[in-house]
């Protein structure tokens, strides 16, 4: 078909593929292309080219923010009052409908013996209030000396609800009264992690 340049400003007679590669650049493509024009099998796009994606645009299940705090200090526990650890994270969610996963991994030394159990309790806090707690194994009693030493987790989740800043922290204590557990220790080398996951 012959190519005809009309006086009205249109060109007719061009076939598909009739223009050489590179003829149409981004300055020539109309803005606001309809999504219907982008359906079907799209060519693979290098992730390196997707530089404009932001955390708020990530699909459900994507991890969009992670924060970690480590603590190497030590606390000898001889009270059933909560003792505040150094583990604390000030966290501002990116989205108001994200899933927030808060997990602490606490290194503990729990010693039980003749008249005492070895047992401690960890507590997550959100802005200073209880956000979930857990009692770890009771060991030793009635003449059986026993130690439970290791890393113990405590975790909880919530929907972010807003993009307001909040602080997650961790406390520990003896689960029994002081007379029942004298040598429970928060031995440090512990961690607190907060994950924000798009929903």
């Amino acid at each position, binding site marked *: 078909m012959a190519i005809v340049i009309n006086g009205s400003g249109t060109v007719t007679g061009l076939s598909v593929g009739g223009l050489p590669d590179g003829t149409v650049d981004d300055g020539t493509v109309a803005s606001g292309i309809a999504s219907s024009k982008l359906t079907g099998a799209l060519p693979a796009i290098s992730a390196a080219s997707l530089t404009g994606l932001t955390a708020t645009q990530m699909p459900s299940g994507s991890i969009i923010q992670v924060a970690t705090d480590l603590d*190497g*200090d*030590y*606390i*000898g*526990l*001889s*009270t*059933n*009052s909560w*003792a505040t650890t150094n583990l604390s994270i000030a966290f501002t969610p990116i989205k108001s409908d994200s899933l927030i996963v808060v997990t602490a991994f606490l290194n503990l*030394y729990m010693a039980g013996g003749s008249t005492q159990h070895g047992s401690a309790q960890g507590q997550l806090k959100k802005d200073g209030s209880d956000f979930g707690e857990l009692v770890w194994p009771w060991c030793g009693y009635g003449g059986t000396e026993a130690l439970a030493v290791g890393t113990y987790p405590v975790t909880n989740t919530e929907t972010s609800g807003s993009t307001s800043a909040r602080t997650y922290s961790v406390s520990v204590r003896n689960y029994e009264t*002081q*007379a029942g557990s*004298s*040598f429970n*220790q928060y*031995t*440090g080398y512990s961690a607190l992690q907060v994950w924000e996951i798009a929903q």
Partner: protein
Amino acid sequence: MNTSEKITKAIREINPNAMFIIRGSSPDTVTVDGIEWDDGITPIAKSDIEAKMVEVQTAYDAQEYARSRKAEYPSIGDQLDDIYHNGIDAWKATIKTTKDKYPKP
């Protein structure tokens, strides 16, 4: 016995109902300066705690022979087996070996 346990034992002997924590960088490097008393608990003077710690350590050291013996004695099951097969005198001889190895001061 690490320092944290020693401080705890000393405080317990002075006041069995004391409620406190001990903060520091490790159980071996804590000091009485790291003690935080619960609200409502009358703090014990540091000098009193340190003096009691010396007593606690002395008492602990005095039991070293007993801890060593305990760690080395055969299990109760093995001892009963020894008595059954070899008699009381042979069992006593076995036990005496450990007792002689770690004499009572």
